């Protein structure tokens, strides 16, 4: 799983441009399951278990990542763009990006601090004023290399550091994809459906459709969520803590979770000696928001990898939390299939 994680995080795939990620996933699950690609581009996979499931269980992770999209080129050859998904302006200024299929290198420039009024020295420029410099000498040259509508992704390599930490772009939610690939390639107790969904970051588009198609009784969303365990933060303000295992949600801004599933997940993790923790803040949202109200309603559980600096080019998490999240998901899939 570690190698798969590293490879899949490095692939470009903003919302709506998940092709490369999808092809990679298919290359890894081919032969281990049946799958189809739906009209929006999500992969729906069915993995036969040792036994038929009493209840239909769907596991979901999204393939897309946040990034930007080219909206124009100004008269001097600077690229203008819109954000795809929620990106905080302050984590991308002064960073390197790659544009389009040809991976044209560019950088997000900023007016030098020396030329900024003293009062504005810590003021983050407005997102409208941002631009990407690809070194073009004018508009005409820029348009030879970059077209409107092309995707822009962060350039940020996969790094291992400290005590078992990793840093990469797109850990949200390639960590979830890597876990699902790992489960599909292993032996499962019960039949299970998997949704590698598109377009989560722009409003849970893909999972709306896959949940309808699969029509599950139960769903488990495999995600990443903010770990605010930094700068000596204490208690529940940390949301969740790196190294303490998969974070189980009782409520976020998109979903009020089924409380029995929340409790069950923590209990099962404890019984099986898997590290798990409750997510201690009502914040964020994920595909559960779409899945729980699909058709006649679905009971949903979310297991997330605690991740620092989410939606930045430098997401940081602990690899062991990805392993424990996977183990909780596997145990709960069995539990829900047979209950």
């Amino acid at each position: 799983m570690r190698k798969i994680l590293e490879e899949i995080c490095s692939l470009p795939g903003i919302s709506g441009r998940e092709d490369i990620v999808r092809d990679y996933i298919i290359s890894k699950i081919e032969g281990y399951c049946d799958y189809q690609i739906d009209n929006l581009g999500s992969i729906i996979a069915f993995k036969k278990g040792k036994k038929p499931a009493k209840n239909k269980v769907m596991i979901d992770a999204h393939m897309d990542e946040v990034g930007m999209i080219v909206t124009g080129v100004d008269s001097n050859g600077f690229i203008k763009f819109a954000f795809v998904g929620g990106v905080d302006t302050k984590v991308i200024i002064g960073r390197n990006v790659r544009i389009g299929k040809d991976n044209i290198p560019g950088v997000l420039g900023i007016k030098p601090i020396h030329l900024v009024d003293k009062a504005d020295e810590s003021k983050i420029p407005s997102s409208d004023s941002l631009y990407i410099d690809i070194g073009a000498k004018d508009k005409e040259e820029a348009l030879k290399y970059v077209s409107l509508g092309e995707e822009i992704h962060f350039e940020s390599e996969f790094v291992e550091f400290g005590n078992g930490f990793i840093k990469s772009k797109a850990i949200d939610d390639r960590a979830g994809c890597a876990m699902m690939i790992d489960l599909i390639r292993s032996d499962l107790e019960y039949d299970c459906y998997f949704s590698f969904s598109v377009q989560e970051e722009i409003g849970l588009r893909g999972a709306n459709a896959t949940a309808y198609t699969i029509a599950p009784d139960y769903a488990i969303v495999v995600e990443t969520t903010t770990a605010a365990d930094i700068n000596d933060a204490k208690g529940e303000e940390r949301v969740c803590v790196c190294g303490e295992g998969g974070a189980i949600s009782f409520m976020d801004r998109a979903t009020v979770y089924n409380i029995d599933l929340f409790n069950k997940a923590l209990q099962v993790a404890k019984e099986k000696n898997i590290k798990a923790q409750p997510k201690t803040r009502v914040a964020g949202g994920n595909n559960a928001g779409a899945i729980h109200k699909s058709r006649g309603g679905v009971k949903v559980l979310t297991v997330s990898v605690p991740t620092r600096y989410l939606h930045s080019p430098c997401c940081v998490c602990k690899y062991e939390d990805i392993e424990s999240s996977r183990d909780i998901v596997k145990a709960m899939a069995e539990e829900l299939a047979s209950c």
Partner: protein
Amino acid sequence: MEYSEVLTLLQKLCAAKGTSGKEDSAADLSAELLSQYMSVKRDNLGNVIGKKGEGKGILLDAHIDQIGLIVTGFTDDGFVKVARVGGADIRVLTAQQVTIHGKKDIYGVITSVPPHLASDKDENKATSFDDMTIDIGMSKAEASEVISLGDRITFNGPFDKLLGNRIASPSVDDRAGVVAILRCLQLLEGKDTCPIEVMFSAQEETGGSGACAGAFNAESDEAIAVDVSFASAPEVSSEKYASLGDGALVGYAPALDYAMSQKLMEIAKAKDIKAVPEVMGGRTGTNGDDIQVARGGVKTALISIAIRNMHTAVEVCDLADIEATARLMAEYIIERSGKNA
């Protein structure tokens, strides 16, 4: 890309590290590269000093230090507290990748504080340097094993080749100037020139102490400082500032020697080297200011290389401008040597 000599030198020098007062591998590498052309020594402040020939000649200066951060302590959880070294730009540091040069190089990410933990709730404001911490994924005990107070921190970033002959990298300020001087010496190889002194000076970003002390020990009565300057970009006026690709920016300022500025422009024209004047109203904010008043005074010129995004990890320059600067200095030295011969 063209300008392969300049490209190779810049890539090597930008990969080396050296913040003000601890110029480390950058100074070592520049000394090694310089020693191909002249005898080299290091002085008390860490300046790299080279000299070729005897007696009064011309001093070429570029600073070897780069901006960065310095370790001031740890939080209880093992996050690293910092202060800045030189004029690092707080607006580009959230979630920036860094290297802490401790007992070994330690990877880290500057923390990005989620809104609910931010002390300043203004989303459009960067965290202050006082509140800034670096995540190194270690406990305090582990961190203090490998990192000591005063260790230096540099900003990570790739050496990105953009379109044409343009490059984005950390520390183009002022490795571009160091490259211009090395390339100038390469162009002068085999030529009989006046004595040349070279100073790759320390501590420019923290106030120019290196150039101050280095110029005191230099013999030359004439100097050219090479530094970077602002290139036009969105919100950086193209009427006020030169553009990438304009060539060498020849400084005109009350503190600079007017005759030298004029001579440089004249030579640029005669030798078909791209150059434009860059006018400042007093001093220049470069090592030129310190060199000018060394001992009994030194006639000083300044040539600048335009860069975008100064003091970020994506300083953008055009290799053609570095080459033009090198050629202009070389032609100036050739002419000066002929006259004095």
